[in-house]
Structure formats: C-alpha cells, structure tokens
C-alpha cells in the first residue's frame, strides 16, 4: 500500500474519532480501565518472578544428613564445609531441635507429633549460608555429592510458594481482565458501527467504483487501533508513575533484602510495550466485530 493511501486512511480514522466524541470517550475509557488492571498486574508479575529468582540465590542450603552418620562423621563434614571458601557459615540443627521447630509451627496440631520424641524420623540438618548468594545453587550442587549427605534443598519451598501466589494472582487477573477486554472490545465495536453507519454512503460509492475491500476496511481497523492506543496511554502513565513512587519509598534493590524491586528500566519499556500492544489488539478486535457484522462489501 502506498504511503499516501495510509495517510488518507489515518485521516479518515481521526475524523471518525472526532465525529463520535462520546462513543470514542467511552470506548477509550473502557480500554483504559482494562489496561490499568493489566498494567498493575504486569508490574507485580515482573517483580514477583524477579523476587523469586533473587530469593533462590539468597536462602540457606539445608543439608539433610544420613541417619547412619555418627557425630564424628558430622563434625568432619561440618569442618570440610566450613573450610570451603564459598561458605559463609554453617549451623548444625540436631533432629531434636528440628522436631521442636516443627511442633512450634504446627501449634494446636502438635498432638499429632506426640510420641515421635522416642523415634524421631527427622534427619539432622546442616544449614549452610553461601558467601555470595549468587553461588547458592552451585554450592548446593557441590554439597550434594559429599558423603552422608542425603538430600539438599535451598529455598525452593519459599520461591515455589511465591510463584504459586503469582500464578493464582495471574489467573484471577486473566479472568477478570478477559471480561473487561470483552467489554472494551464491545464498546469499540459500537463506535466502529457508528462510523460505518455515518460513512455508509461513502462506502457504497467506494464499492461501486471498485475500491478494494481492504481499502474500505483499513480506516476502521485504524480507528479501532487508535482507540486502543489512546486507551493505553493513561494506564501506562499511571502505572509507571505509581511504580516510580513505590520504588522511591521502598527503594529498588536495596533497603529491604526481601522486597528487592526491579528498577524503572527496562521494566517501564516492557510494561509500556505490552500494554500498548494489548490495547491495539483489543481495538482491532473490536473493529473486526463490527466490520464483519455491518460492513457489507
């Protein structure tokens, strides 16, 4: 298609947006609300997965020791680990302490654990902290090969739960967001319907003189896409300004070791990009509904 033609289509689309001011406003608002929710979720999602990966690196390595290990074996192993240059500290948690901790966690349900004192099934544990959090994983892999080491884990529990949470939030947002997106698309399709109606004479003449089907359709797609982009501008701005403020209060990547937030860059690029693309998608989808239903070519 020629640039000239594209300009023409864009001009037509703009004209129509102006002609149906209130419908345009309603459609843009609906897109904006939808995308605001998506935008906030995106920021959360990016941060949660970031935090999870950070936590993975930070948490202690728990080594479950073989039941057959004697105290001497354990001391030797402990010494060997402490001498590793990558290790910051090593704590020994005997199985009695492990049971005590478990009882504390279980609270009322502690009665189920009664009687276990005499025949404690829990392993003794060595808790190892890496000097450099980034090395936690490689250190854990190394430790798992040592004698009397039965099992090694490092924080999957916490990060898994965090990821579970984010998955759950994602599902809720997806269902809710999908509903809103349908509503927004419906409002857009109504705006486009008005445009098709307002331009029905032009369309009739275009058909008669042999304008190609795409020549006739393009302005409506552009109009829908523009509604999507306009609807994305507000939520992108709000989400990014809001996030910037949150970072200002909590501090990105410092202050709290747990709430390690992503910086503005490149997060803002991702959020803006994804949100705008989604807006255009909703807009074009809305146009498509009306074009298929009302544009007789």
């Amino acid at each position, binding site marked *: 298609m020629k640039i000239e033609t594209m300009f023409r289509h864009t001009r037509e689309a703009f004209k129509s947006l102006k002609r149906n001011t209130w419908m345009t406003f309603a459609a843009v608002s609906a897109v904006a609300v939808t995308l605001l929710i998506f935008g906030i979720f995106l920021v959360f999602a990016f941060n949660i997965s970031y935090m999870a990966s950070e936590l993975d690196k930070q948490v202690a390595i728990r080594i479950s020791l073989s039941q057959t290990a004697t105290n001497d074996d354990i001391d030797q192993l402990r010494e060997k680990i402490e001498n590793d240059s990558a290790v910051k500290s090593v704590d020994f948690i005997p199985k009695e302490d492990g049971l005590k901790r478990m009882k504390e966690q279980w609270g009322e349900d502690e009665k189920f654990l009664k009687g276990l004192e005499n025949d404690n099934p829990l392993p003794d544990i060595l808790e190892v902290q890496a000097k450099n959090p980034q090395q936690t994983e490689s250190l854990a892999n190394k430790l798992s090969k040592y004698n009397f080491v039965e099992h090694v884990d490092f924080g999957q529990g916490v990060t898994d739960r965090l990821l579970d949470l984010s998955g759950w939030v994602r599902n809720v947002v997806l269902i809710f967001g999908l509903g809103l997106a349908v509503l927004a698309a419906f409002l857009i399709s109504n705006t486009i319907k008005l445009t098709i109606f307002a331009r029905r004479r032009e369309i009739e*003449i275009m*058909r008669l003189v042999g304008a190609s089907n795409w020549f006739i359709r393009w302005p409506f797609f552009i109009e829908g896409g523009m509604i999507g982009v306009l609807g994305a501008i507000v939520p992108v701005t709000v989400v990014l300004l809001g996030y910037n403020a949150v970072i200002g209060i909590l501090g990105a990547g410092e202050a709290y070791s747990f709430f390690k937030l992503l910086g503005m860059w490149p997060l803002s690029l991702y959020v803006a990009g994804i949100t705008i693309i989604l807006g255009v998608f909703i807009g074009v989808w809305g146009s498509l509904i009306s074009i298929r239903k009302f544009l007789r070519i």
Partner: protein
Amino acid sequence: MIEMHDVYKVYGNGVKALNGVDMKIDQGEFVYVVGPSGSGKSTFIRLMYREEKPTHGVILINGVNVKRVRDWKIPYLRRNIGVVFQDYKLLPNMTAYENVAFAMEAVEAPKRKIRRRVQEVLELVGLHDRMSALPSQLSGGEQQRVSIARAMVNNPSFVIADEPTGNLDPENSWDIMYLLEEINAQGTTVVMATHNREIVNTMRKRVIAIEQGVVVRDEHQGEYGYED
C-alpha cells in the same frame, strides 16, 4: 461485451425477478432497457455490475463469468463499469471536483493523474466552471452530470445507468442524453434503464424490453412500446 445465458434470479423472499434471460450486448453499443415497474429491469441492471448474483445461469462481462469471480476480485471487475443512478448518489459534503476525485482515490490512482483526469471529465460533462460547488449548490441536471463524470473518471468500458433522467425535467434530461450519447460515441458501451418514452422513441437505439422477468422484445432502433 455483456452476455447473459439463461439467467434466473430468485430473491430470498421467493420473489422471482428474472426467469431465463438470454441476451448479448456488444462493445460500443447503446442499449435502452424498458419495462413496467416490477418487471425485473432493476435486477437485470444490478446483475450487470455484480450487485446481485444470478441464482442460475451465466453472466459474462468481457468474457469473465461474474458468478465465479472471487469476492476480493469483484472490486477490480467493477473498475471497468461506471454506474449512474436516478438519485445521483453524490457525497453532500464534497465539492463536484472532490466527488469525482473520490472515485479515483478509492482505486488508489496517483495524485497527479487524478488532478488531470478529473478536470478532463468535468470538462467533458461541461462543469469545469462549477468544480468547487457543493452538490446542494448544483441543479439536478448538474448533479447528474457530476455523477456521470464520476462514473467515467476511471475509464470504464461500460456505463450502466439506472433511470438517470428519472428526477430531471425534459430539458435537463436531454442534456444528460446528449452527454451519454457522446460518451457512447467515444467507444464506451452504455446500458440505460428508463421510463422516458420520448427519449427512447426519439433516439432510436437498441431497446430490450423486459416483462415478468423475461426479455419480450429486443430490437435495434426500437421504440418504447408502452402506454403510460
């Protein structure tokens, strides 16, 4: 060339508009299509520019079977056909010039070519000094001339006119007829449905008469043949 072979048209509501039409119009001919209201005249005309599809039978436009043409190719078929209506169908917010140029813009003609060609056809229809007038500022005859200019601007090989003089007084009607005759003289085929007895009987061109969906008369230098 336009050919119809055993063409039937039955509308969705069961109305049988055409019941087996056979005819052939050669390139460069001038043909009147006459018949009482509800005779199938309009359907006959609409089939020619593929506004309707035949229920049965074959329609060939320059050898192309219009029923077989894929939907996306129909626009290209229509570029070869100019259509003129009783009610002009001009866009009210565009000037005469813009109305004609619109037809070229819609087929993505280059800008420079548009300017030259639009002026040329507006001159042909005698409106070169009314180019910047809106339809509301033009008389009925002038509006119809703009619509003929629009039909001609893409150099079609056929002009199909559905009662082009239906809303005009005799004087303006004759102006339109002279114009169509001139267009025909330049080699464009003209097919015109009409109720205007005086014009048909005076100009003595080929006449196809349609009644109850069939061609009942097809004469060269024919007459209108109906009492109104």
